[in-house]
């Protein structure tokens, strides 16, 4: 019986499911206490009823996206546009208010364990047990993904080597590593479990140009060798153009454009002048990528 179920799952992952990732009409709203307006009005001593005033913000608004197996799709958007929220919902860390998300046919809300086995995520903040070494952190992560320490160590050394990590620092506590080195360990953690869907949330932020290139090459290799599907959010236009088969531009929680890099440029071409992807972004969102807005 178990064998039959395993075979069914295998078939599902190996291509029976049309898309690696399906995001269908997904919305997420956050409720926040309206502290700023109270302070602005100097109304610190309002009645309790008023003090409880809350505002609802649609962070992701009716987003749909279908990512085929083996594709690299990019999501661009200014800070606060909903990129990380979308990644968190796919990662099973947030529940959508509406719509549904499936990973190789598994629903992220109803079948989170099945989804978690197939995904991994690299986020912009390299969070680790800071007193533990890079290797200790990776061995611990490996245990959570069913890898024995020897297997984790071998794979971690390979990935870190590919990323140009200084191997003499592999047993140093994380708190003694530079931001760039920590980010490389975070990337190694994301790749360690060989996920079939990899969620990269601004993975190269904070890396020097050489390290950035190493990571981008490794992402390409991962797709070529393992047919992994990748969803990448980035602020780096060259990275998006160089890696992504298709790019979605997200603004205020909505997908406002979705095409190949060239398609997006063609969309905004004026007087036979082809704009850069950054110009396309500014044209469509009315904002620069680094505009200040918390997410």
């Amino acid at each position, binding site marked *: 019986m178990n064998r039959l179920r395993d075979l069914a799952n295998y078939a599902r992952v190996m291509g029976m499911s049309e898309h690696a990732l399906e995001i269908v009409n997904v919305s997420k709203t956050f409720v926040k206490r309206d502290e700023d307006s109270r302070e602005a009005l100097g109304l610190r001593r309002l009645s309790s009823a008023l003090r409880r005033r809350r505002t609802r913000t649609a962070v992701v608004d009716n987003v749909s996206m279908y990512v085929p197996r083996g594709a690299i799709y990019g999501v661009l958007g200014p800070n606060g546009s909903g990129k990380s929220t979308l990644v968190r919902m796919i990662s099973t860390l947030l529940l959508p208010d509406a719509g549904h998300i499936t990973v190789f046919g598994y629903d992220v809300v109803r079948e989170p364990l099945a989804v978690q086995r197939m995904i991994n995520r690299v986020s912009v903040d390299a969070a680790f047990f800071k007193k*533990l070494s890079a290797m200790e952190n990776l061995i*611990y992560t490996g245990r959570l*993904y069913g890898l024995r320490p020897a297997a984790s160590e071998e794979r971690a050394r390979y990935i870190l080597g590919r990323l140009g990590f200084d191997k003499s620092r592999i047993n140093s506590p994380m708190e003694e590593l530079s931001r760039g080195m920590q980010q490389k360990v975070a990337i190694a953690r994301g790749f360690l479990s060989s996920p079939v869907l990899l969620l990269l949330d601004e993975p190269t932020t904070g890396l020097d140009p050489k390290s950035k290139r190493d990571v981008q090459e490794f992402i390409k290799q991962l797709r070529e060798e393992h047919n992994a599907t990748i969803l990448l959010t980035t602020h780096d236009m060259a990275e998006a153009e160089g890696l992504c088969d298709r790019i979605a531009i997200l603004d205020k929680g909505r997908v406002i454009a979705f095409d190949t890099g060239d398609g997006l440029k063609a969309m905004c071409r004026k007087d036979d002048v082809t704009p850069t992807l950054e110009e396309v972004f500014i044209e469509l969102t009315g904002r620069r990528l680094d505009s200040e807005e918390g997410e």
Partner: protein
Amino acid sequence: MSRILTEAMAAYGFVERQFMLLKRYWMWELVWLLYGMSMTLSIGFLGVGMQSLTGARLDTNHLILYLLTGSLLWGYLSGLFWDISHIVSWERWEGTIEYTFMAPISRISHIFGMSLFAIVYGIVRTLLMLGLVVLFFHLDLGKANLGGALVVLGIASFSFLGFGTMVAVLPLMSPEKGSQIAGIVEGILLMVSGVYYETSVLPRWMQIISAFSPATYTLRGMRRALVEGAGLGHLLDCLLPLVAMGIILIPLGLKVFQWGEMYCKRTGKLKRSG
């Protein structure tokens, strides 16, 4: 079968991680051990000085053992309670909470792994301290039923596991206030469970609360085993409530924690670091 193995490996991963952290924070561990020893010895000296303080003729060995059992046991139980109720806070401090919660493991394995570490670590630390205070005060443990004491401790650990898991939901749901409330719960347990006195000296309303605390039965059972040398038959009235509490509190704690986790996933509170 492979699913069980994966979950067991993940649970062991938490134990291994905590021991690795213990190794890295060894200076702090030494500080806490010395601090705990000082506290326990101070309580012991209170027993030593009681005869000259009151002028009454007292069984000093009995009194010291009575007080030290309370002190050592509270050190163990409060440590266990702290480790379990701060499963989430710990991950928040390090910023790793999202990575742990998106790993393909059940929450039961997560909590079980953390609890297993807390129990093993707590028992080793308590036995070490017990050995040191016995030597220091030349206590006579010839009458003590050490096996019975370990049975009480083992069963009590499971009741505390359930209780701690329920309280762990507080730091999960409120990063700002959850840990503080967990501290208040711990303080109340200390007061009502009879750590240094019989619960019969408490006001009636406090005695009612103490009847619901697993620490009350643990302390009572441990004292009977260590001080009076009571056999398992005479410990049943302490063991049965502890077993009942474990049976009720462990599934209830897991249910409450799962509910809290879903609440956080709905409201986005897992993301917040504190």
